[in-house]
């Protein structure tokens, strides 16, 4: 048996390796590093908003840079690389192949990310995670803005390379005895999300280049002063990034498809409807992008089209929820840490979707758009669903990666605190939005309701912060000192842990 951290190897051996579990380990450690960096920014933002007036962040520009880098980091440097970590570890094993299809390309896709992360963090741009022109062209200070653009460009290339690898590994390299209809749902989630990336990402790549040349003053695609149109950028951006939200959420759902049946000690309710829902989401997800743009002055007809496109994707998301609940129904659930995270994640997924439907209904969106409601909405996805699914899965794969068990009590405390904190922060932000508080503001007038809601949210954030410290301690301590895992069945749920782990691919 080969477990990564059990047999110590010099760090450079892992760094220069192209083996899928080594690349997976690199993805894992890097993404967790960025989780904590981005999380620290969030805590600073919440501390600043605890009261009106300036609290801990000296000036508005620093604040604006912080929320920009916070969002960029957690989406592109935590969520996506974390999913790649899981995919690298398990997709080859699930399709019974010796490695990823293109191991060198795989390592390259990983090594593109640290320089991109460095560009984003050293630049510290301020133009929000969507870099809207003309602000991003005529007003955002360089070189931060240009560094961000280059950083995103590199990340786009990395995710395209990574996606090609997943698609080829699953479609072409799976064991000949295995049909696509037998590939586990987690691998299906990587297949569908990778296909979305391949279709969606080039559009944004083009938009970024146009943004850059606009900044350099040699073109005016999005600059009204030169006859361009900022709305064109918004379409290009959201054509990529609405589908991209499914890229973020689908692998997390896939991880829950591993956890839920395992700890319910029952097969998944319907494998077939899991696949159907993934495929539907990845197609219908392309018909809703301009629901982010209702207030840009679109015509009634345009708005209607995108509302219908958005609502059409909801049944597919809802299918997953049904599948999970039906699997847990009448089963002997074992409430270990991974299962608690998965169940919490499903509950928050449901609430997030309900809020999304309100956004989609066009007249309601004029109340919620660009208020804290939207911040609450998508954080119930990115934090409540995706981070919850990912962290649950991290606990689940922990024995596999380290050969040891984490501390179960600390894992449960981590969950309970994070769950309470998440509800406190993001449900409250929905209410703040209804009170009319705009997002992305450094300071706010002393309206009593706003102050109360902001304080609840800030305290919730601190609770999450403390729980994450417990998490970090647990991960680091247990990697060296945790009790050795019973690798056949570390969670005592019966059946085999994971895929025949002896079949784990030897290092080459």
């Amino acid at each position, binding site marked *: 048996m080969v477990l990564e951290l059990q047999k110590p190897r010099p760090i450079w051996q892992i760094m220069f390796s192209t083996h899928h579990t080594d690349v997976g380990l690199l993805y894992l450690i890097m993404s967790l590093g960025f989780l904590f960096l981005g999380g620290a920014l969030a805590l600073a933002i919440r501390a600043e908003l605890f009261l009106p007036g300036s609290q801990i962040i000296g000036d508005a520009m620093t604040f604006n840079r912080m929320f920009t880098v916070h969002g960029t980091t957690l989406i592109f440097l935590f969520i996506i690389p974390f999913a790649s970590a899981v995919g690298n570890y398990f997709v080859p094993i699930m399709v019974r192949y010796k490695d990823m299809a293109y191991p060198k390309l795989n390592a390259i896709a990983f090594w593109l990310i640290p320089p991109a992360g460095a560009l984003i963090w050293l630049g510290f741009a301020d133009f929000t995670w969507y870099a*809207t022109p*003309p602000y991003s062209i005529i007003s955002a200070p360089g070189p931060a803005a240009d560094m961000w653009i280059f950083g995103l460009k590199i990340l786009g290339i990395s995710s395209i390379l990574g996606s090609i690898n997943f698609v080829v590994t699953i479609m072409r390299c799976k064991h000949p005895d295995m049909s696509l209809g037998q590939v586990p749902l987690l691998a299906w989630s990587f297949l569908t999300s990778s296909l979305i990336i391949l279709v969606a990402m080039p559009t944004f790549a083009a938009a970024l280049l146009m943004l850059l040349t606009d900044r350099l003053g040699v073109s005016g695609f999005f600059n009204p002063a030169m006859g361009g149109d900022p709305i064109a950028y918004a379409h290009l951006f959201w054509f990529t990034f609405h589908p991209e939200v499914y890229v973020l959420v689908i692998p997390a759902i896939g991880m829950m498809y591993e956890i839920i049946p395992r700890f319910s000690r029952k097969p998944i*309710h319907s494998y077939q409807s899991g696949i159907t829902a993934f495929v539907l989401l990845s197609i219908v997800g392309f018909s809703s992008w301009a629901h982010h743009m209702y207030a840009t002055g679109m015509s009634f007809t345009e*708005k209607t089209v995108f509302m219908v496109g958005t*609502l059409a994707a909801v049944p597919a998301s809802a299918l997953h929820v049904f599948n999970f609940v039906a699997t847990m129904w009448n089963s002997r659930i074992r409430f270990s840490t991974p299962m608690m995270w998965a169940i919490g994640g499903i509950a928050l997924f449901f609430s997030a979707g309900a809020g999304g439907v309100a956004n989609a209904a*066009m*007249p309601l969106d004029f109340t919620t758009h660009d*208020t804290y409601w939207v911040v609450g909405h998508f954080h119930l996805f990115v934090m409540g669903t995706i981070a919850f699914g990912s962290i649950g899965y991290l606990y689940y794969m922990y024995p596999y990666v380290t050969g040891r068990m984490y501390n179960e009590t600390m894992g449960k405390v981590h969950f309970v605190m994070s769950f309470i904190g998440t509800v406190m922060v993001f449900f409250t932000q929905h209410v703040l939005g209804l009170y009319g508080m*705009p997002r*992305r503001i450094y300071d706010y007038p002393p309206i009593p309701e706003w102050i109360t809601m902001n304080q609840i949210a800030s305290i919730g954030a601190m609770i999450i912060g403390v729980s994450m410290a417990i998490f970090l301690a647990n991960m680091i301590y247990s990697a060296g000192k945790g009790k050795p895992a019973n690798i056949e069945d570390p969670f005592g749920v019966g059946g085999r842990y994971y895929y025949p782990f002896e079949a784990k691919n030897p290092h080459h």
Partner: protein
Amino acid sequence: MAHSAWPEWIYVGVVIALMCWVGAEAWEAERLVEHYPEDAHVIKVTGQQWFWTFEHEDGTKEIGELHVETGKAYKFEVTSKDVNHSFNIHDYVVLMDAIPGRVNHVWFAPDKAGEHDIQCREYCGLIHYNMRGKLIVEDPSS
């Protein structure tokens, strides 16, 4: 494992029905909202970093403050001089992006005298947080 599929079909049916209902209600409401009253007074709204300028039909201009009267309808023609902003009177659900090179429309009809906040809801840089104004609704003087 054999299980019956009908609960899933019923569930999907219910979700689809709900979405159709939400969509139909939203469509109907938005259609009414977008029906501009013919006699609406036009107010030109211009956003720039980081304040709002208003121009009434008779040519009077106001900065940061906007005076209107109850019982009348107003149509805003919203644009921007520099970067994107979003013109927002939350209490009256007035929200429209102010985009350079474009003129967007939105209307409202204040029904009660009072003061309301005007704010910018689209990120526009350094003082975005304080790009605020006041709407003052008065009863007609005569």
